């Protein structure tokens, strides 16, 4: 590979870009503001010195961010098969709708009489979510998936407390294959976390699970379809068993996109489940948020749903913002205001576009695409469990044995081929795991090229061309980054090393 160097450091269309602190100045600006009038101030002398932050004129700012953007992979550019993350197409209609002033330019604390359309949208979204999940109540306010988990587990905790069993029910059962957020959430609420081992088929071992049950169990937190991309066949038996033991069933709904329109979680005995609007219902991931995690609740938990709630009142829709304004027993409040309205608009626009028929097709195509990958790669890569899978195909690293190539190297080589790698090393229960989720928005041609690429990579690894992997990526904006150094000598802001040196000199 040619390593042509250039005078500017740019490489054709790949333009290097310094930090705003290196290109801007505190007295430069891309915003014109009205002059100050010199009004006597009312700040009581509690005033700061200069703000030492760089400014950019508008054209400089535009270039800065456009250049940065070009160093990112994105779903709009190509397949982004991150398992469990559901990188599907984000329709631009949804962006346009979220920017309607009637949604974007309203204040959360305006009188309810002036925001009837916004409350109607929330009510409508709630109706869709409740109907699709077969659950009687939904808390819209959680801000992301993990926040929705917290909401569901708080409702469970409140219900247990109401039964007077909070001293006793302190244990939460979590499969070892679970997302890290599950045990972290349980621990945040003071529960102890007890792992459930996976069976040989990649699902909860029903007998091992039953052995763990007791009158100290508060809940099970189970992902379904699970993190191995498999439907938990015994889910109804699991629900019955945990209910019989007096506990509750929290379902991590991160993978609801696999079954939307096909299965209603309410029919499976689930008591609480969060829904990632940014996964199943296509709101953009935005480089790590904002997400939204509405949480559906069963009859047993509905009364404990947090504030606020949208209810029909005498003069239209109203917001219940205080506990004494409802007959329920809300456990409290998860956020200031009412949740991720911008995401509600996008998700509802997505649902209305698909309709009941289209959403079922979404699940069908997502599952079909994943199974197609699983089937086409079955002779090439190795799977720890037999199919069919749901919306994602899980592979282990057995096929790389003795090649000198590890999962990480394999993933980095995919970058040179123009792909974002799949989820790696998760779930933890599978050695060198590679979790591929194509989603329903990939065409067959796109999948075929992806499959052919992976076959070609496997052929290289098997043929001993380890360099293609261990030195990868060669063609990305940067070579492999030193993550160990970043953690050992943390530099988390511009100028911090210089400041430290100054301090040491003093």
């Amino acid at each position, binding site marked *: 590979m040619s390593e042509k160097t250039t005078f500017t450091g740019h490489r054709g269309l790949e333009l290097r870009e310094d*930090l*705003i602190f290196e290109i801007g100045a*505190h007295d430069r600006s*891309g915003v014109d503001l009205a002059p100050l*009038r010199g009004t006597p101030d*009312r*700040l009581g002398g*509690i005033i700061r010195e200069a*703000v030492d932050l*760089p400014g*950019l004129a508008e054209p400089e700012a535009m270039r800065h961010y456009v250049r*940065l*953007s070009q*160093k*990112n992979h994105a779903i709009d*550019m190509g397949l982004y098969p*991150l398992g469990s993350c559901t990188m599907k*197409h984000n329709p631009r209609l949804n962006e346009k709708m979220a920017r*309607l002033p009637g949604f974007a*330019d309203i*204040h*959360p*604390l305006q009188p309810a009489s002036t925001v*009837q*359309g916004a409350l109607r949208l929330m009510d409508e979204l709630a109706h869709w979510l409740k109907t*699709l999940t077969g659950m009687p109540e939904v808390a819209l306010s959680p801000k992301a998936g*993990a*926040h929705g988990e917290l909401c569901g587990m708080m409702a469970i*905790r409140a219900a247990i407390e109401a039964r007077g069993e909070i001293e006793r029910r302190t244990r939460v059962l979590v499969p070892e294959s679970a*997302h*890290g*957020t599950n045990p972290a959430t349980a*621990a945040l*609420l*003071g529960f102890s976390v007890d792992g459930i081992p996976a069976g040989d088929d990649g699902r909860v071992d029903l007998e091992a699970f039953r052995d763990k049950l007791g009158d100290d169990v508060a809940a099970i937190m189970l992902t379904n379809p699970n993190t191995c991309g498999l439907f938990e066949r015994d889910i*109804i038996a699991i629900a019955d068993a945990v209910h019989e033991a007096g506990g509750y069933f929290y379902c991590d709904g991160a993978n609801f996109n696999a079954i939307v*329109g096909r*299965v209603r979680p309410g029919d499976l005995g689930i008591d609480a489940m969060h829904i990632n609007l940014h996964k199943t219902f296509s709101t953009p*991931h935005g480089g*790590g948020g*904002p997400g939204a995690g509405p949480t559906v609740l069963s009859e047993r938990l509905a009364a404990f749903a947090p504030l606020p709630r949208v209810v029909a009142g005498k003069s239209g829709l109203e917001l219940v913002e205080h506990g004494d304004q409802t007959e329920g027993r809300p456990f*409290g*409040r998860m*956020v*200031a205001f009412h949740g991720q309205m911008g995401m509600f608009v996008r998700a509802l626009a997505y649902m*209305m576009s698909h309709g009941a028929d*289209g959403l*079922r*097709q979404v699940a069908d*195509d997502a599952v*079909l695409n994943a199974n197609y990958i*699983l089937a086409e790669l079955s002779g090439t890569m190795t799977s720890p469990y037999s199919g069919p899978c749901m919306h994602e195909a899980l592979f282990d690293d057995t096929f790389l044995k003795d090649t000198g190539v590890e999962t990480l190297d394999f993933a980095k080589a995919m970058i040179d081929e123009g792909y974002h790698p799949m989820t790696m090393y*998760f779930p933890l229960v599978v050695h060198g795991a590679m979790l591929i989720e194509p989603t329903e928005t990939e065409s067959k041609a796109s999948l075929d090229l992806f499959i052919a690429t992976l076959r070609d990579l496997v052929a290289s690894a098997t043929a001993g061309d380890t360099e293609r992997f261990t030195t990868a990526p060669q063609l990305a*904006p940067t070579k492999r*980054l*030193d993550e160990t150094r970043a*953690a050992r000598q*943390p*530099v*988390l802001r511009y100028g911090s090393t210089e400041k430290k040196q100054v301090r040491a000199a003093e």
Partner: protein
Amino acid sequence: MRYLPLNDADRATMLERIGVENIDALFCDVPAEARLDGPVELPIHKSEMQVERDMQAMAGQNMTAGSAPFFCGAGAYRHHVPATVDHIIQRSEFLTSYTPYQPEITQGTLQYLFEFQSQVAELTGMEVANASMYDGSTAAGEAVLMAHRVTRRNHAVVSGRVHPQYVDVIANLSDMGGFGLTHIPPTVQGAEDLLSSVDENTSCVVVQNPDFFGSVNDYTELAEAVHARGALLVVVVTEAVSLGVLKTPGTMGADIVVGEGQSLGNGLNFGGPYVGLFAAREKFLRQMPGRLCGETVDADGKRGFVLTLSTREQHIRRDKATSNICTNSGLCSLAFSAHLSLLGGNGLQHLAWLNHEQAVDLAGRLGSIDGVKPINDTFFNEFTVELPQPADTVVEALAARGVLGGVPVSRLIPDGGFENYLLVAATETCAPEDMAAYAAALEEVLS
């Protein structure tokens, strides 16, 4: 269906390659009794045009801030966001990218997160900041939990002048996590006795600046007293623009600063999505929640950025993690950072002064109306007025006259004797004629 590329021929070919008869065979692991045999009872698919029409009908039922003289604040502020910002956050490469787990192909996201962290640290006067939280209220909740971890104590003391819904979020997390909390009863202004509630179990004292009622405070002495008792000072900022002019929480001696960043780059959006700011002293770094972006080098020695110190986080530490947070507020932090880059230090300072002048102007106008009494000695761009009658009915009457005149305190604190108090905010977006219209409408409503 316009978002689904597969056609029936593709589907048939693929099913054949998989070796199953039909799509139902792929759902064979679903218990038979739970399989739906047809679509659920919801409307069927709609064209883009139809969806747009339905959405516009709902949007049209709302009175927008831009269509009325507008003076609401209480934790959400209307500022002018440059057109450039919205263009930048709609770039496909930012909008449709994931959390930057593969740093070699997400340097764009990582570099702006690094810049964001640096900006937040400078703004708040702190040493380190994270890559954002969900919003200000959840950041406040996490700050209290962090203080418990740092001090190994389990009780927080929260000022009565912290945003009431932030207090609710903190209280809920504390209750559920089995921690203690003393909330000082709210008072509009005057000395507030926080220290007599501080004892050897107190991990932190939580205050807000400007406080919920709008007053500007210097917490330097409080910080010293709190530190002398072995506790931390947490400062909440719900109006980020105020940081352009006010003495920084870091200078005052804060240990953790949390804030709502909505004011920069982000619209009102009926309450979300917003962006939580979280900054702290460097010595507490390893107890911080949330994502952190750090500088490093690549295999050629070239500067690059990665997510780092993830051994604090849930995907590594599971039940021992500092927080369960996973997603943050990436795109909103980009909007914040881009807006702040456009402003620059001097620009932000100017914007902050402009906001303050607007509020001083408005306070003067409202204060000259019979029976209207501005309460605050000091304020930034928001203040409290006492009215001769309940504020909620006044606000309704103003709305009927096409003015969004502020937030009644009783909306957030229903039982505390605050019925006649109204929170009023003015930003650079209020034109002089808006203020005149407001004053005239208020005079009419009160007469």
